[in-house]
C-alpha cells in the first residue's frame, strides 16, 4: 500500500517535471534569442533596423535594414495563403462530404503522403520544374520569384489545412446535417450554411497552423525565391525572406559581430510575427466558443 502511494507520487513528480522542463526550455530559448538579438540595438537603433531598406550586413558601412526581408516574408506568406486556403478548404469539403469509399481513402492517404514530402524536395521541384514555367509564362528574367515561393509553400501548407479542416468537418454533429437536409437544404447549402460555420473554429486553427508552417519554412523558400533583399513591388520579382536570410548567412558570420546579432534580431522579428498569428488564431477560437 505504501509502496503504491510512493509510486503514485513518483509518477506525479515526473509528469510535473516534464511539464515544467518544457516551459523552462522554451523560456531559455526565448531569453537566449532576446539576449543575442537585443545586443544589435546597441549599435543599430531599433527603428533603423525595422524600417531600413538596405540589408548589406558585410559591406562597409554595413546596412542592417530588414524591411525588405519582412516584405518578402509577408508577400510569400500571403500569396501562399491565398492559394492554399481556398484550395485546402475545398479539398477538405470534398473529402469529408462528397468522396465515398475508395476515393475517400485514396485522397486521405494522398494528403498524408503529401505532408511527408521533405521541404527540400518540394524546393527542388519548385526550382527545376516550376521556376522555368513561371519564367516562360510571364516573360520575366528569372523564374525564382515571390510567386514561385508562394506556390511551393502553398503545397506545404495544403496538407495541414486539408487534414485539420477535414477533422473539424467530420466532428460536426450529424444532427446539424440532418436538420439542414430535413429543412430541404441542398448538399451545397448544407455545406456552406451549416458545416463551414459549425466547423469555423477548427478551420481557423487549420489555416493558422498552415500559415505558421509557411512563415517558418526555410529550405524551400531559399531555393525558389531568388533571395534578392530588395523591396518587392510585384509577385514576379525575386524576394528574400527572414528565414532564408538567417539560414543562408548564419554559417559565415563571426560570433559576436553585429551581423551575428542582427541575425538573432531577425529571429526575434520572426518570433513576434508567429506570436501575433497565434494570438489571432486564439482570439478567433475563443470568439467562436463564446
Amino acid at each position, binding site marked *: 500500500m505504501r509502496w503504491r502511494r510512493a509510486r503514485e507520487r513518483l509518477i506525479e513528480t515526473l509528469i510535473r517535471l516534464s511539464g515544467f522542463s518544457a516551459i523552462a526550455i522554451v523560456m531559455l530559448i526565448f531569453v537566449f534569442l532576446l539576449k543575442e538579438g537585443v545586443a544589435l540595438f546597441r549599435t543599430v537603433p531599433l527603428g533603423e533596423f525595422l524600417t531600413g531598406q538596405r540589408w548589406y550586413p558585410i559591406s562597409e558601412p554595413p546596412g542592417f535594414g530588414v524591411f525588405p526581408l519582412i516584405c518578402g516574408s509577408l508577400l510569400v506568406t500571403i500569396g501562399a495563403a491565398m492559394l492554399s486556403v481556398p484550395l485546402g478548404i475545398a479539398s477538405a469539403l470534398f473529402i469529408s462530404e462528397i468522396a465515398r469509399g475508395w476515393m475517400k481513402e485514396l485522397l486521405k492517404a494522398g494528403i498524408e503522403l503529401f505532408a511527408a514530402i521533405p521541404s527540400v524536395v518540394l524546393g527542388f521541384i519548385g526550382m527545376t520544374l516550376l521556376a522555368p514555367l513561371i519564367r516562360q509564362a510571364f516573360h520575366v528574367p528569372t523564374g525564382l520569384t515571390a510567386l514561385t515561393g508562394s506556390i511551393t509553400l502553398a503545397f506545404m501548407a495544403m496538407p495541414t489545412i486539408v487534414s485539420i479542416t477535414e477533422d473539424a468537418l467530420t466532428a460536426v454533429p450529424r444532427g*446539424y446535417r*440532418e436538420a439542414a437536409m*430535413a429543412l*430541404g437544404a441542398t448538399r451545397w447549402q448544407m455545406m456552406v*450554411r451549416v458545416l463551414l460555420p459549425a466547423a469555423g473554429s477548427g478551420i481557423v486553427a487549420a489555416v493558422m497552423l498552415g500559415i505558421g508552417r509557411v512563415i517558418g519554412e526555410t529550405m524551400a523558400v531559399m531555393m525558389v525565391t531568388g533571395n534578392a533583399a530588395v523591396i518587392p513591388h510585384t509577385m514576379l520579382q525575386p524576394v528574400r525572406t527572414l528565414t532564408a536570410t538567417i539560414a543562408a548567412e548564419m554559417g559565415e558570420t563571426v560570433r559576436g559581430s553585429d551581423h551575428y546579432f542582427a541575425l538573432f534580431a531577425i529571429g526575434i522579428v520572426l518570433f513576434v510575427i508567429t506570436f501575433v498569428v497565434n494570438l489571432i488564431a486564439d482570439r478567433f477560437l475563443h470568439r467562436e466558443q463564446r
Partner: protein
Amino acid sequence: MKPTEAPKLIVQDLDLYYGDFQALKRIQMSIVSRQITALIGPSGCGKSTLLRCFNRMNDLIESVQMRGRILLDGQDIADPSLPLVTLRKRVGMVFQRPNPFPLSAFENIAFGLHLHALAAGRRIHAIVEQSLQAVGLWDRLKDRLHQPALRLSLEEQQRLCIARAMAIKPEVILLDEPCSTLDPIATGKIEELLYALKEHYTIVIVTHNMQQAARVSDTAGFLLLGELVEFGPTNRLFTNPRDPKTEAYITGRFG
C-alpha cells in the same frame, strides 16, 4: 375525425432493406390530414426507419434499398417531378435529440426561409415571431432572439426545432421520439403543443412511450420486427387490440 378528407400520405407495399437486412416488410397504411398518427413498437422495430421514408432521409444511407411506393397527396414521393428539396419543404422533421444549429434562435428559424427564399427583411422577422408564438417560446425569447440557441434548455431547444420546421410552412411534420431527452413536465408541454398544431398540420410521431401515443394520437400503428402489425384509431387499438401481439405489447408483456 374527418372521414371525408383524402389521406395525406399513402404507403403501398413498402419494403426496405439495409443491405441484406429487411427492416420494413410490406407496409400498407394511410395517414389522414390534420391528425396525429403515432407509430409505436419496441426498439429496432423499424418505426423510425418508416418515419424517415416520408421525407426520404434514408437516401443519405448508401446501403438502403426501397421497394413500394409512398404517395403524398397522390403523388409518388420518389418521382423525379417532385424534387427532394420540395418534398422536404412540404414534409418537415423534428429529431430525437434537439438539434438547433449553433446559431442564434432567430437565425435558426430564418435558416429555412433563406434556403427556400420564402421571405426577406421584415417579413422574416414576422415569420420568426409567428413561429415562436406557435410553439410558446416568443414571450421567453423575444428579448434574446440573437443569443446562441445552444444556451436554451433542452425543452426550449426542442420547441425551437419545431418552430424551425414550421417556419417554412410544411404540410406534414414528422417527429422522431421528440420527447425522449426531455423530463415529464417538458414532455407534457410538447404534447400540448402537438395537440394545438394538428389544427394546421398532419403530424406523424414515433414514440416508444405508449402513454404518449395514447394521449396525443388519433390513429396509431404498432410495428414489430419490420411489420405493421396493427393500424387503426388509437382508442380502439389501445382498448380493444385485434392482434394478440399488439395486446401483449401494450399490456407490457414485452418490449
